Structures are given as structure tokens and as C-alpha cells.
């Protein structure tokens, strides 16, 4: 019998080893899998590459992973947290900055077996011309830049080649889910969650509510269980809404 529910979040995340690439759902604190991120901190992994829209505005979630020094690289469109930039400029974390729509599409593409795609977003900008610093050295010099991206004209427009992201793991948050892994999200907490889940080779979902199999009608499931490997319950201790300090573009 297929039963993806796990009582123990720590056991569910144990396969994540240091060095892993992890796609994380959420937009700011909305739809952020706080329980899973806290559990990941408890697991004491290092050298992680996290793909997420925002680092967050406080020291929960990815912010906690950051300040605990667990991140090797962040792929994001809008980090927010000032401490992230302190770490970035000091050469302690790499920053792959990509447009928000490109991030969403790269996660979906990886999950859909699309190796790469041509998008107009960012064509002819420093996010595609090889000049944006991916990382710094401790002395403040640029250690490496995001490589220049292939440009190509289709019709009368210029497009950039972007690659699908297949993450080793994905951590997402859903409003409801069943033991087959079928998920439903709530309002704008959906955001990147279905896409991160598709991108993960091994996907763990944190649920606000575990429902009986069959309670979610086939037409009402936002993400089918085939994209989800394990579901755990959200801890009541997890912050529901963090403090955000800046408005994104």
C-alpha cells in the first residue's frame, strides 16, 4: 500500500546529505515549509545549494540555514535578508540571481524533463551577459561570475537559453494533503510550491492538514501525488508569517 505519511520529519529528511541541492517552495513566508527547514537545521547538514525565491526577511526558514552557515549557494530572484548580502559580499555564500519567472520556469522544466528553454526575460542584461558576480573572495574581489548565457533570436526578439533545474530534494508546504501525496494549496501560498515539488528527485511536503485519501476530489488536486515522496505534518511551533521588511519588485 502506498502511504507517504511520516510521523517523524527528522527521519523523512535524513536522506538529505551535506552538499545536496534543495528546491524550496514559498514566497516570503507565504507557503514556506518552516517545519521542514527547521528540521533540516536540526539535521546539521552543510554546503547546501538552495533554490528558493526569497531568502526571507528574518532568521526563520532559509534565513536560519544562512545564519547557521549551512549554505554554499543560493539561487533566488529576491533574497531580501540584509545578512544574506553580508555573507555574499564576504565570500561565504554564492548567489545565482535569476529573474523570478525564469526561476519558476526552470523548476517546472526540470520537473517536466525539459532540458532547457528560451525565454526573453533578462536578454541583454547583466544577468545573462556573464558580468554578475556569482561569488566573492574573502578580500572582496569577484571569485566567479554567473556564466554568460546563450542568446538567440526567434522571430524579431532576442531570447536567453535557461536550463531546467532537477533538484536532489524539494521541500514544500501545502494546505491539505493525503497519504498518496496529493496536495492542495491555499490562495497565494501556492506560488512556487508545486514547481519546487516537480523539480525534486525526492520531494517532501509539509501539510497544514492531513486528509483522508479520497477527500480531495480528482479535479481539485493542485499537485498529484506522483510528484511527492513523503508528507509530514506542520509543527504548531513553526512561525506562520514572518516579518518582512522590504517590498520586492
Amino acid at each position, binding site marked *: 500500500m502506498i502511504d507517504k505519511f511520516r510521523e517523524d520529519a527528522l527521519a523523512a529528511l535524513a536522506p538529505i546529505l551535506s552538499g545536496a541541492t534543495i528546491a524550496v517552495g514559498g*514566497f516570503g513566508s507565504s507557503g514556506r515549509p518552516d517545519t521542514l527547514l527547521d528540521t533540516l537545521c536540526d539535521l546539521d547538514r552543510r554546503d547546501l545549494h538552495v533554490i528558493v525565491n526569497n531568502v526571507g*526577511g528574518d532568521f526563520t526558514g532559509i534565513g536560519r540555514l544562512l545564519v547557521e552557515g549551512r549554505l554554499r549557494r543560493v539561487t533566488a530572484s529576491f533574497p531580501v535578508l540584509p545578512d544574506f548580502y553580508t555573507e555574499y559580499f564576504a565570500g561565504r555564500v554564492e548567489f545565482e540571481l535569476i*529573474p523570478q519567472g525564469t526561476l519558476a520556469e526552470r523548476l517546472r522544466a526540470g520537473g517536466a524533463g525539459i532540458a532547457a528553454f528560451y525565454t526573453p526575460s533578462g536578454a541583454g542584461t547583466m*544577468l545573462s551577459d556573464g558580468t554578475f558576480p556569482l561569488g566573492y573572495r574573502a578580500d572582496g574581489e569577484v571569485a566567479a561570475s554567473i556564466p554568460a548565457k546563450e542568446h538567440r533570436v526567434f522571430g524579431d526578439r532576442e531570447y536567453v537559453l535557461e536550463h531546467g533545474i532537477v533538484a536532489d530534494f524539494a521541500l514544500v508546504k501545502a494546505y491539505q494533503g493525503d497519504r498518496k501525496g496529493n496536495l492542495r494549496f491555499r490562495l*497565494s501560498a501556492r*506560488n512556487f*510550491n508545486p514547481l519546487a515539488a516537480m523539480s525534486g528527485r525526492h520531494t517532501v511536503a509539509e501539510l497544514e492538514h492531513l486528509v483522508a485519501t479520497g477527500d480531495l476530489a480528482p479535479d481539485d488536486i493542485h499537485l498529484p501525488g506522483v510528484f511527492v515522496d513523503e508528507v509530514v505534518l506542520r509543527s504548531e511551533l513553526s512561525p*506562520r508569517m514572518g516579518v518582512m521588511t522590504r517590498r*520586492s519588485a
Partner: protein
Amino acid sequence: MTQTAVSEQVSGRSREGIAQRLAADLRDGFVVNLGVGIPLLVPKHVPPDVEVILHAENGVLGMGPLAAPGHEDPDLTDAGKQPVTLITGAAIVDSAVSFAVVRGGHLDVTVLGALQVSGRGDLANWYVPGQNPAVGGAMDLVAGAREVWVAMEHVDRAGRPKIVERCTFPLTGRGVVTRIYTDLAVFHIVTGELRLAECAPGITPEVIRARTGVPFVEA
């Protein structure tokens, strides 16, 4: 052509006035995305016989006003993470579909602030070198929306033109801006040509020319 700041004060439209002037050009049924700054002032000035669908990058189609204090829902925010409301008939999509709306040409207009706009419609609005870089959906919006309208002050705080021959800040997109609404004027950019479409009340083309860093055509 470079230009120094003009110190003489002129009295054009207020920030609300810019938003109101822009709102008058929105057409019934438009799907619209609003950036921060003056663009966020636009909704309250939309004429009563015009219905626009507000899009937020995080997957909201049919965004209403900010949530009243005490009625915030942490699962319903705008792209700036502010608690918002929905209009009747609103729909929620994931981030990939949200940007499919944007890039696929289903967004009629994105209204954005700007650091600089070139006469050919190049836009710089995402990054001031030396500050903390972040892009959000800006590059997708300018690449994808059918029209990119900039709403901004005509000159920067130091009085320097923001409409320039060539952007010195990093670009968000090349040749993407189709209209510019400022306190002094409305410009249209048509096939790479900057055209003065309208002067604000009491403002002459000469006043505008003195505060604009690139030549324009009087339409």
C-alpha cells in the same frame, strides 16, 4: 548628449496626479501589473466605468485593496508580501502560470517605476550598483507585457534627467518601454522614437526639454 541638473523648480503633476493621468489611459478589461512607488497609486484613480484585472507575480489574478487591519490572511499577499484582498472572480495560479501570463503576452500593461529610461525605451529599474542586488519579476515583466508604462518623477532628487540617451544603471530590458508618465509630461516611444504626447497643465515643451537628457519629437 549629456545634461546637467536644472535647479529651477517647476510645478507639474503630483505623484497622485501622475497616477491619475496614467489611470485615465487604462482600458476596460486590461490585465495590469503594478510595480512599487507611483504605480501602486494607480488603482484608486481608475475610472468607474473601467474594470482592470490586477496581476501579482506570486499568482494572484484579480487583486483587490490591501487587507484591513485585523483581516490579514497570511496565505494571501501581493508581490511585496503585503496582505491583500481578492475581487469577486479572482483566480489563483502557481508562479509558473503567473509568469506564463506575463511572458505569453496576456498582460496588457505593466506599470513600473524607473531609475532611468532611454529615448529608445531601454529601462533601468532593478539595481543600483553598490546596493544589494535583487531582481524579482522585473525582467520578466518588461520582456513579457504587451506594454511597459513607466510612472516616475521627471528628474531625480538631484535634479538630473531620468530620461536619458543611454542608461548608466544596469538594464532591466532593452527597448521595452512604450510610455512614460511624469510630473511634467506623457511620452510615447514608437519604434525607438521618443515622442512628447502631452505636456502637464502649465508646462511648456521648453521646460520639458531642459529636463530631458535626450531629444524628443513633439507629436
